[in-house]
């Protein structure tokens, strides 16, 4: 049985005449340790699909299971706990909290856990070490480069070692050099056993994934390993 399953999920926004289908009907299965890339044009529904897979957005229809837990059957507080323990998020434009320094930003998911202060600090420093930013722990986000901010966002996403990492356009605001560094970092995490689900526009970034699904007009148009999707074959 697959680790993450989205079964016939759909998402509509608005009501009546103004009702818009962001995702029409999608089935996705993701294996543990897999690096899945969701591609598509702007407005295709890929970020909406990622939000539904990540427990951030209730589907209008269908269900999302992680293991054997239907995450949308959980109450909001339990779902928040589930997100904290099982998922890490890397958002577009880094989304660091501007008034917290690098170390504090990385510690954020631990703020509501039962770790001691020393443990929290140790975990955060360890995450920063993994992304190569241990020496910039006490800088504010506006005192480091865009590439470094993205790596801080990755450290924050992995600090509590969640089984799944969701990344929405993680290199959207980076130049090619920094993009490559971030993608190598994600690939390394995946090699260490991290399940990653990433949304991207970039076919170049998609090459780092094990599998790609192409979303268009709210449905999956193509799915398969990189070479097959790129060749236009259906799976």
């Amino acid at each position, binding site marked *: 049985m697959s680790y993450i399953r989205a079964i016939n999920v759909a998402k509509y926004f608005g009501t009546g005449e103004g009702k818009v289908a962001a995702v029409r009907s999608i089935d996705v299965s993701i294996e543990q340790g897999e690096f899945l890339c969701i591609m598509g044009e702007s407005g295709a529904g890929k970020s909406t699909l990622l939000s539904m897979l990540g427990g951030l957005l209730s589907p209008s229809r269908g269900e999302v299971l992680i293991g054997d837990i239907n995450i949308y059957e959980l109450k909001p507080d339990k779902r928040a706990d589930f997100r904290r323990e099982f998922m890490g998020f890397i*958002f577009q434009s880094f989304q660091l909290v501007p*008034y917290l320094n690098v170390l504090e930003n990385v510690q954020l998911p*631990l703020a509501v856990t039962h770790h001691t*202060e020393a443990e929290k600090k140790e975990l955060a420093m360890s995450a920063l070490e993994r992304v190569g930013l241990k020496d910039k722990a006490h800088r504010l986000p506006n005192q480091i480069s865009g590439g470094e901010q993205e790596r801080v966002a990755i450290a924050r996403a992995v600090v509590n070692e969640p089984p799944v990492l969701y990344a929405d356009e993680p290199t959207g605001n980076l130049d090619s050099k920094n993009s490559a560094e971030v993608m190598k970092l994600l690939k390394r995490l995946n090699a260490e056993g991290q399940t990653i689900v990433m949304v991207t526009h970039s076919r170049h970034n998609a090459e780092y994934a094990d599998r790609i699904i192409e979303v268009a007009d709210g449905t999956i148009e193509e799915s398969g390993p990189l070479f097959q999707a790129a060749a236009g074959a259906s799976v």
Partner: protein
Amino acid sequence: MKLRDIAVNNLRRRKAKVFFLVAGLLVGVASVVALMTTTRILEEDIAHKMDEFGANIIITPRSEGLSLTYGGLSLGGLSFDLKEMSEDDAAKITTIKNSENIRYVSPKLFGVFENRGHKALAVGVDFDAELEMKKWWKITGQPPKAEDDVLVGKEAAEKFRVAPGDTLDIKGKTFKVAGVLHPTGSQDDGLVFISLPVSQQLFDKPGKVGMIEVAALCHNCPIAEIVTQISEALPAAKVTAVQQVVEGRMDTLHNFRKFSLGISGLILMVGSMVVFVTMMGSVTERTREIGIFSAIGFRRSHIMRIILLEAFVVSLIAGVVGYASGIGATRVLLSFLTDKVPHFSLDPIVPVGAVFLSIVIGLTASLYPAMAASRMDPSEALRTL
């Protein structure tokens, strides 16, 4: 890293925002403190001045009276078992438990005299106490200073045809008319005021007094208590509170207090609205952040705690600074409102009340914004990025 660190860091690193939030609440708290303190001090001052203005307790010798009627026809009345009071009784008044509330004690002795075919009532008084108590008196000439000086009421002066500087014979003794009272519209117009010791000699009642008027500061104590205490000290006397005077004074103070409470309530309402609007604005501005908190696994209660903790800190600062500013404003206000700045006293309940009020308003006004933030859908919040 704890939730409180997030709140404290936010406040520490957004100084301008905190400044405006504190300022919004501070203005409200300072206004209320200033208004309440100014009102209290003015109220005390007014009460003090009103208490000094005339007597509010009258003490007369106790006597048994009998009203005689027969077949519905009034045959007049008579007094018997008439007791007398002495100057020692007047001194006893200053020994009661609430003696600090006794402002003036003015013993009086009455005696009738005849001059040029006209009869009049001479009243022996302690001129210092009498003149202090009857501040509304206006005198043509001078207030009496020497023992043989008299002060004559307007009607009495016309009756005896005397003016300041003239002489007036009372019971064979010649007095100098030091001054004549302007018409007062009271019984004072027909009286001749002489010094108490002289009146005791003239009417052959050494050491005796016929009536004692007392001006008591009854602002902070019930007048009934003072009446009871004087009655206990002077069992042979009848002690009566001039209810009309007492109630009139209390009414004035009551209205003054109601007015200040109304204004304070209005200011507090405006202050609460300022905090509410500012907190709502702050939450809207932080939509992105709140979305991140929610996405990474903060519960609704965690988000509420962060926002309410920030509101608590801001309110605490606003309460403390607001109290200090309010007291400062009171001093300035009093110097504008009064010619002579009244005694400035601090009420220990006000600082505690100011901080408590500030926290209650800050938290109440932030409750809805905090709830709105905690209920924010993380994907909706992140969509605004």
